[in-house]
């Protein structure tokens, strides 16, 4: 028994003796690596850590407008350098890019980005030879800031030559004069620059046109990757229960404006029963069971992945009073990226509705005070109260509205509501800072098929307390069984600047 305990004691001592150096060496290794990391940054040498692979490292940085890397490519490999300035996103390679063959052996790859007289120039060098040279004119983008991420550092690293290797990506954030509009989300296409290496002739994986998911970073985003989406977040916007909110994250000019209030671009779909609209806002929403959600399954996922021009999704409501089961088909079209189509349907076999109302509300913050008719602009303030119906709505004559682009079977009429206010401070209204209109003048449009049983209505402030009268709400009325969607669109109004 005694010998057994002594042996165990001895072995434990040896274990400690064997592992103590490991702890000490580990700490010292960290210290040496830290010094080395800095020293390598000063050196320009490339260690070919694997002569059968691509080896590459970043070179010391002398001028912020030129980044350089030194690489070694084995003779047996065939790679090319690729460069793009548009379509930069984190879900795939840019669709359009320039390329040049990468010579084998040890060479230097450099990217120069400069701006002169407003022109943005991008030059890719291999050693001192120009292989790609792109210049964009000043109106390509208005931007005061950019960011970049360098994926190859100063440590010589080996990579397989049969896979793409991203080296440097940068994004420009749009601005409007001195105001920065911020950057678009990573999944949207940005203007910027991306430099990468790829095997010769490699077919890149391009980001999808449409997105939709119930989990992950892009959860509850449904629609165009580069355009309008539906973003359901019932818990985040408690006042928007029952509404279908449209967002356009790819359009930075709309970001400031549309974050003031989400009502302008949120649609209330109301079945009309016994002459009255039922309000989806009164449906109680919980995190477990939202008042409205996208119907999603593997078949829908496949449709999202495979669609290239147009996508249809379906939103389902909780049962309305009386057991009415309402669904809304939502349409997204790549050709008109800032709009969403709505087509409501009743799913009950034995119930009926008299029609549908699609309503958006807006507040004075948006300064929407004009309607675009075919030959003129109509001021909301000039509408005669005698022309309003009992509920205070003014019906806009469809035949006086401009004709839109025709994406469906029927001709389209466009109701556009917009502002001519370039500088909101001159309107003379004082409002709390949180309601300050700090964004781009915008235009809200309803695009409807030219059919007899479709109506377009607007409502102005019932009690104007300010010098200018603005829109309070818009409404589209549909028959019980509509066969074409109506479209809601939001656009920035560049030409006012």
């Amino acid at each position: 028994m005694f010998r057994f305990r002594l042996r165990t004691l001895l072995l434990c001592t040896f274990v400690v003796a064997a592992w103590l150096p490991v702890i000490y060496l580990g700490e010292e290794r960290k210290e040496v690596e830290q010094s080395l990391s800095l020293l390598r940054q000063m050196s320009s040498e490339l260690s070919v850590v694997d002569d059968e692979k691509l080896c590459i490292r970043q070179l010391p940085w002398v001028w912020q407008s030129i980044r350089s890397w030194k690489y070694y490519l084995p003779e047996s490999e065939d790679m090319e350098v690729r460069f793009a300035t548009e379509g930069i996103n984190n879900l795939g390679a840019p669709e359009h890019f320039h390329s040049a063959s990468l010579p084998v052996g040890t060479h230097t790859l450099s990217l120069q980005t400069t701006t002169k007289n407003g022109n943005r120039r991008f030059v890719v060098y291999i050693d001192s030879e120009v292989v790609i040279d792109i210049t964009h004119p000043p109106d390509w983008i208005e931007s005061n800031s950019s960011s970049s991420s360098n994926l190859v550092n100063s440590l010589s690293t080996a990579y397989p030559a049969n896979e793409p290797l991203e080296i440097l990506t940068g994004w420009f954030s749009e601005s409007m004069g001195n105001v920065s509009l911020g950057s678009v989300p990573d999944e949207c296409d940005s203007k910027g620059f991306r430099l990468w290496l790829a095997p010769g002739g490699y077919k890149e994986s391009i980001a999808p046109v449409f997105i939709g998911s119930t989990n992950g970073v892009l959860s509850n985003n449904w629609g165009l990757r580069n355009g309008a989406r539906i973003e359901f977040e019932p818990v985040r916007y408690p006042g928007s229960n029952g509404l279908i909110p449209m967002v356009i994250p790819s359009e930075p000019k709309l970001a400031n404006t549309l974050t003031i209030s989400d009502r302008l671009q949120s649609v209330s779909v109301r079945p009309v029963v016994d002459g009255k609209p039922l309000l989806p806002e009164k449906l109680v929403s919980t995190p477990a069971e939202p008042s409205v959600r996208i119907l999603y399954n593997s078949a829908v996922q496949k449709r999202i992945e495979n669609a290239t021009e147009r996508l249809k999704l379906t939103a389902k409501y909780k049962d309305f009073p009386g057991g009415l089961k309402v669904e809304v088909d939502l349409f997204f079209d790549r050709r008109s990226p800032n709009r969403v189509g709505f087509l409501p349907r009743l799913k009950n076999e034995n119930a009926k509705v008299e029609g549908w109302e699609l309503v958006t509300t807006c507040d004075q913050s948006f300064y929407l005070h004009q309607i675009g008719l075919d030959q003129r602009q109509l001021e909301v303030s000039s509408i005669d109260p005698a022309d309003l119906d009992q509920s205070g709505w003014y019906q806009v004559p469809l035949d006086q509205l401009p004709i839109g682009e025709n994406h469906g079977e029927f001709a389209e009429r466009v109701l556009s509501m917009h502002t001519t206010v370039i500088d909101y401070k001159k309107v003379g209204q004082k409002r709390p800072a949180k309601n300050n209109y700090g964004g781009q003048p915008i235009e809200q449009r309803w695009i409807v098929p030219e059919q007899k049983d479709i109506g377009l209505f607007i409502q102005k402030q019932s009690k104007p307390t300010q010098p200018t009268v603005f829109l309070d709400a818009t409404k589209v009325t549909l028959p019980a069984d509509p066969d074409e969607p109506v479209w809601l669109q939001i656009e920035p109004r560049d030409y006012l600047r």
Partner: protein
Amino acid sequence: MKDRIGWGTWVLSILIVSGLGRSLYLSMDLRELSRERDRLEAEFGKLDIEDPDRVYVTRVKSDAVELPPGVQSGYVWQYRVYLPANYARCTVTNNHLIAAEGARRRGGNSSSSSALRGDAAETIATVAILNVEGDWLFTFTMGGGASTTRLRNSHSFDSFDDLLIDEPFKIGQQKSFSPDDAICLARLRLPEPAETTKDGVDLYLGFSVFLMDTNSQSDFERWAKGEILAMPSSGEDTQ
């Protein structure tokens, strides 16, 4: 009683062998890394930090720095810099009229600041004067940040031969500074003064760049304007 080897003994034996193996691997790996570090330190010099609360600057040779393509000619100063804990780095670049010594200046200047860094850190600073397609650029990079100043039209020179390039540090020379001090990392100017101040200081067309803690920037500005003769707590130690 038979002396059987139980499972406990096996486990402990495996731990001993794996510990020894791991030590051997780490030792060989560390030897390799140390060799590389020694080689690079022989080339770029060492930073000997005796007082962790002071700033240490060593100038390293810059012929390893390859001028990028598109740059016709250039002159580079490169430094290893040790910054003590709680040092909020600030750099001031003067790009119009500067004195031959000190911080006196008149005209264009720019500054950039970084957030206060809780831990001490070592970094690299690179200053360069570059000729790019006929334009003269003065560039400064340090710890991920960078700035570029374009030569004004009034700076008329065609080559480096026309300039007096000041070397605040010799290559391989290390100096230590109080964290309250302002450190000149590079200075270059035309040889003839462009004007003289009221108190008799000659000012020359040129560039200079200074490194300091953000808290010392207001003292630096007073020094640059001639309100004080030196930074309040200046005192460099040359090693």
